[in-house]
């Protein structure tokens, strides 16, 4: 696949789900056209036609074929444009395995140590991919809705929402494998999770807390991610997200 394939993203500037796709495309160096949906004005025909079931952004259109659901889109991007890899790949592991198989063939004959080494290379890699999928799925299930528990509420409900949100962050923090979720390299879980950080300032304002105090390691991970080009250009200014959510709260009689 060349980097000039026709790629269109149906987008909304504040959507953390759309940000995931923008980061993935940027990490891969893929040129794309982002078409902003005006969610106040109503959904475009292209959006309604390409995602008739959910009628939501993001939608990726690749040569006109729609792919919906942000984590599924990120997996698709990772599979179609494999380098640099977001999910841990087995290319290195396979290459190592081939090296050892060749070594065994030529030099050693059958030796239980080498075949154990050979066998253990592949499962480790698939396990790492699976753990990445698990944590991306956890973020999908918990993080956005957890945040809603803060910005959609007031009073006692907001306090409870804040408590639950911090618990979710603490579980997520425990999954950090190093500088990033997968270890040394920015990858799949980081792509799925970091967009939500653009909403944290708003949650902190509404809830009267700081993510840095509750989860210092996660906070450091956020700073690290923000230093990456792909992330910095895909995430909006958190104060703009805060303004946007203030407007929503006013519209729904919360402020």
């Amino acid at each position, binding site marked *: 696949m060349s980097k000039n394939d026709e790629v269109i993203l149906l987008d909304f500037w504040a959507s953390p789900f759309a940000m995931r796709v923008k980061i993935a495309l940027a990490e891969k160096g893929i040129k794309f056209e982002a078409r902003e949906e005006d969610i106040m004005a109503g959904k475009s025909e292209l959006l309604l036609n390409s995602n008739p079931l959910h009628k939501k952004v993001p939608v990726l259109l690749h040569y006109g074929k729609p792919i919906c659901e942000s984590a*599924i889109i990120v997996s698709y991007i990772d*599979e179609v444009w494999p380098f640099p890899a977001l999910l841990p790949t087995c290319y290195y592991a396979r290459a190592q395995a081939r090296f050892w198989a060749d070594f065994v063939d030529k030099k050693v004959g059958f030796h239980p140590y080498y075949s154990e080494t050979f066998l253990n290379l592949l499962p480790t890699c698939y396990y790492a991919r699976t753990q990445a999928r698990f944590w991306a799925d956890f973020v999908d299930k918990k993080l956005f809705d957890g945040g809603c528990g803060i910005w959609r509420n007031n009073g006692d409900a907001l306090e409870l929402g804040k408590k639950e949100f911090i618990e979710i962050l603490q*579980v997520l923090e425990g999954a950090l494998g190093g500088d990033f979720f997968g270890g040394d390299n920015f990858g799949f879980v980081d792509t799925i999770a970091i967009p939500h950080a653009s909403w944290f300032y708003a949650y902190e304002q509404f809830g009267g807390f700081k993510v840095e105090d509750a989860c210092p390691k996660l906070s450091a991970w956020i700073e690290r991610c923000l230093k990456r080009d792909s992330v910095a250009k895909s995430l909006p200014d958190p104060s703009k997200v805060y303004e946007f959510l203030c407007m929503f709260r006013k519209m729904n009689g919360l402020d």
Partner: protein
Amino acid sequence: MAATASEVKLLGAWPSPFVLRPRIALNIKSVEYEFLEEKFGSKSDVLLKSNPVYKKIPVLLHRDRPVCESLIIVQYIDETWTSGPSILPWDPYDRAIARFWGAYIDDKFFPSLVGIAKAEGPEAKAEALEKAKAGLELIEKAFKECSKGGEFFNGDQIGYLDIAFGCYVGWIRVTESMHGFKLFDEEKTPGLVAWSERFCTHEAVKDVMPETEKLIELLK
């Protein structure tokens, strides 16, 4: 890669549709495994230790390393045991579509099925039933598109989406029996009616699919 039964363990319970998914996947790959049945109403130490985040079955233990969340387990099985038939389609776009419908089935269809049992009063029940039936019509469309004329969602062979949806067939039949109406409709979902027969009698499914009568007994 061959695996001995002790290398692969599955924590589960026979009635759970989510547990059925990895069982079918392991059967497709001809992987032997030890099935560790969780007692209904309690959670074993092994379960709590291997799935501390959700504390739920199924959990696959491969060389003592836990894998959680049923569809994630199915993908792990597909990637790890490469000598058997592929469970996910090979084409990235077809894979994205299969994953999309898998997510729809879990996030929207399954709650609508549960909604029928939870609905109180004939009006609420009728509304819940219509919602579930509308979902099935969408899945019928998905079947036509994904199967591309084949017998299964995955084409000629059983695959990811067959597993994702097929695990609910037993509970769909229970719902039909207990509430006295048809969900699988010869007129509106003829593809799914024929597919469900093929699915339930498939080699990889028939010995692990719970019998409808036994599921009904469980609810009494």
